């Protein structure tokens, strides 16, 4: 029996099988934003295909995914490990983060960029942050610009 840590969670897909997800948060110097890399496999070790990953995206995000599946989640080589990982495309991150950050700043609320970002993108691919993470916001805003 493995203990679950922050990087691994068990998720359930449509056919009621157990899938193990592994998430990595990396920083893209090209887009200057964080990027979510992940991989998933069944308990017998068989990795999920891109098709199976797309199908496992939560129902409420399916419409957006279907608009441009190839623009949203694709496979790339992990820049440090070299192995194939699925990646949530970072090209839109600045867009949605700036609108969120503008409003939180107008309300003078504390923000932790990573928690804000991860709580937005994580649920698309099965990573739901517990609310306790929201209490981790530091005194100052992070590298938002």
């Amino acid at each position, binding site marked *: 029996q493995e203990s679950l840590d922050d990087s691994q969670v068990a998720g359930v897909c449509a056919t009621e099988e157990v899938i193990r997800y592994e998430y990595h948060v990396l920083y893209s110097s*090209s887009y200057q934003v964080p990027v979510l890399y992940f991989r998933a496999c069944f308990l017998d070790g068989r990795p999920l295909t891109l098709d199976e990953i797309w199908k496992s995206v939560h129902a409420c995000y399916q419409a957006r995914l279907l608009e441009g599946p190839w623009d949203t989640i694709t496979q790339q080589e992990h820049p440090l490990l070299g192995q*194939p990982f699925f990646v949530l*495309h970072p090209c839109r991150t600045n867009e949605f983060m700036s609108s969120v950050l503008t409003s939180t700043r107008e309300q003078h609320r504390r923000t932790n960029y990573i928690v804000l970002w991860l709580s937005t993108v994580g649920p698309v691919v099965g990573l739901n942050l517990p609310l306790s993470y929201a209490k981790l916001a530091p005194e100052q805003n992070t590298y938002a610009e």
Partner: protein
Amino acid sequence: NFPEKDLLHCHSKDVIEAHFMACIKEADALKHKSQVINEMQKKDHKQLWMGLQNDKFEQFWAINRKLMEYPPEDSGFRYIPFRIYQATTERPFIQKLFRPIASGGQLHTLGDLLKDVCPSAIAPEDGEQKTQVMIHGIEPMLETPLQWLSEHMSYPDNFLHISIIPRPTD
């Protein structure tokens, strides 16, 4: 039998097209803050891919030339898209932010890039150059301006893919 955990499995041309377009977009993020690629229509993106896929030089460059331009008030791109590959390390590649123009206005060279991000590649041991710096299988002079290399010797995905290999000793 395919080693799914170690290699990207390209089941179809769509997979390759998606990967190619992702590289093009990342290159433009570095060169132009994505302005040029975002101003293009979907059909332009498609033309880039089809030109490459069908080996149609003119068709490809009709679009690619826009990705190689920069505003007249600048002397080059914002950052240069490059990846350096070395067989001597575990690391898949080196990729960092690097400007083509120095703060004083001089053009950075290939040698400047290597000195900054991969100094072991050009450090002479006992006065002898143990490695070769290759792009497209040839060894450009280290004095070559990086901006020029990016405009003229990038691969179709708009990246400079640079290999550091042991120099043959014959």
